[in-house]
């Protein structure tokens, strides 16, 4: 099952399958990687937007919590984490 991070349900960990790097500027891409957002990483969408809009999106990436915009999440393809999991521990 593949969908974009943008529409992934809150609270469940997903694995990043593919990131459309050319869709964003090199700086944006680098900052995403600095946050640990890259292919293979496990992320959990936590909070989406406020009273005024669906933007932004707060994620748990490993032990870090980061905020990105829906526009960036839209080009990040994610897949469900299979029961076998990876080598990585599941974020709560």
């Amino acid at each position, binding site marked *: 099952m593949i969908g974009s991070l943008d529409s992934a349900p809150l609270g469940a960990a997903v694995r990043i399958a593919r990131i459309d790097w050319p869709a964003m500027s090199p700086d944006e891409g680098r900052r995403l*990687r600095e946050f640990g957002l890259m292919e293979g990483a496990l992320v959990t969408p*936590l*909070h989406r937007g*406020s009273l*005024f809009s669906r933007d932004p999106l707060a994620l748990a990436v490993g032990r870090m919590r980061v*905020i990105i915009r829906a*526009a960036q999440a839209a080009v990040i393809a994610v897949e469900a984490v299979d029961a076998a999991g990876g080598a990585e521990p599941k974020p709560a």
Partner: protein
Amino acid sequence: MTGAVPTVALVGNPNAGKSSLFNALTGARQKIGNYPGVTVERKAGHAVFADGRPLALIDLPGSYSLTPASPDEAVTRDVVLGRQAGEARPDALIVVVDAANLDNHLCFALELIALGLPTVVALNMLDLAERDGLVLDPERLAAELGVPVVPTVAVRKRGMAELLAAVEEAMRSQPAGAAAAPAADDIALHRCARTIARAATLSETPVRRWTARVDAVALHPVFGFVILLALMFVMFQAVYAWAGPPADMLEAGVGAMQAWVVANIPETFLRDLVVEGLLAGVGAVVVFLPQILILFLFILLLEASGYMTRAAFLMDGLMAKVGLSGRGFIPLLSSFACAVPGIMATRAIPDAKDRLTTILIAPLMTCSARLPVYALIIAAFIPDRGVGGTGIGLQGLVLFALYLAGIVGALAVAFVLRRTLAKGSAAGFMMEMPRYQMPRWRDVAIGLWQRAWIFLRRAGTIIAITTVILWLLLSFPKAPAGESQVDYSVAGRIAGGLEVVVTPIGFNHDIALALIPAMAAREVAVSAMATANAIDAGDDEEAMAETLGERLQGKWSLATALAFLAWFVFAPQCISTIAITRRETNGWKWPLFMVGYLFLLAYAAAGITYWTAVAFGLG
């Protein structure tokens, strides 16, 4: 190291606890300045090795890598590479990493270690990592990284002596070598960091639940917003409610000093200068120190607790609607204290147009320098009572409304700018959310002390000088008997000319007189009126005894007072703001634009307020 005091730079990711570590190492002995040519804040301090030899410490802006995404981060890179003009390359580095976030923080650490300078890694906030169920092996980490690793808990000053000892040892044993080639690309670097982090982790239980539980409420789409608004409201009420007694004491102190000078110094030109110029003028501003400190206290607490980023998250949706990002919320909130650090803080905004717009609207956030003006007028003209028996003070409510007017104005201006002059692609918003933390009184106290000192220094320099100049302009030429000294003086005549322009919006001679020196610093409007009134009162003891507020009450209509408040919501900013805008935007175009549009808005807002008030019979 020969004789000279070695310089050690603290460098690391944002949220690694670098500032706390810097405070723990240097105490309050810090010097805040700027790097020459750029407005990035330079924090320097001193510490001593165990044997008593001194060392200089500099705290570099937090950064994710040596590839900068903002001017702040560029300074960090340039300093550690020895490329920053006017700044010698550090003799050693203390790389600060968050023990609970090694995966990410080790990336930058690896880049820094590869530079080949004597380096020590401070494994910081180890207590929080342990609280989160993480057990680390510092020796293993040191072996993997090839440099000493010292566990530290900066906020409890744990590990400071060991850290300095390790730095001393590293400087002796690791001569600065040529830079090793950094990892080929950031993905490889990240993998390497992750492998090392895994190796150094003995056991791990899932992430912090406490932060998650608080965030469930604090970032709730509706309740989160209610909480944010409530916090802001409490902040502005507190500015009023808590500042009263200390402000009264300061006022009494200034009065006592004036009385002492009058009683002990023979009546001369100099005595008048001191009593009517310096003490009346500077005293009128210093009285507002408690309010400014309360405001800064809230801002520092919000930052230190980790809440500020949540506020940015909540505000991002709203700010995106006017073409800004949640990133802009922090500079704008800082602008409530002062637009100068606020505008400097916009350097964290990567998008150029987003940043420019944030700079241009920063002066619309009600800075603390406007607080003295608001406080004076509100105290004099708005009755001190509750609203409908709710215990919410009317005065506090008016103050809140003034702040709100500035915010709404700023959002409207941003909306227009982003569609006209600062058109560009939608701004991005990427930010790390630190975990919640109990603010440490020590770090907050140091921050407050630094702000208080900056304010008092301003009062002692810019404000003192402008009030003295104004006093001279007000005192000469001497009026012939029977004529008003203020009206006859040079300043009075200039104000007379300006009055023609501002009379339509309800401004009187007092205000016209105060507007010009207020360009130097807004709070000078208060000291200018205090000085003019002191001269006006002359030797009339009864008039001298009246406070400035009482005197204005007798002279101004409510409509004029409200128009004056409305003017200051948009008030053309102080010289320092114009100067910082010029520096941050590299030219005169934008600062001139800013001054122009603010003047127009201020004039229109004051005019509309005045005419409306008069229509309701308040003139």
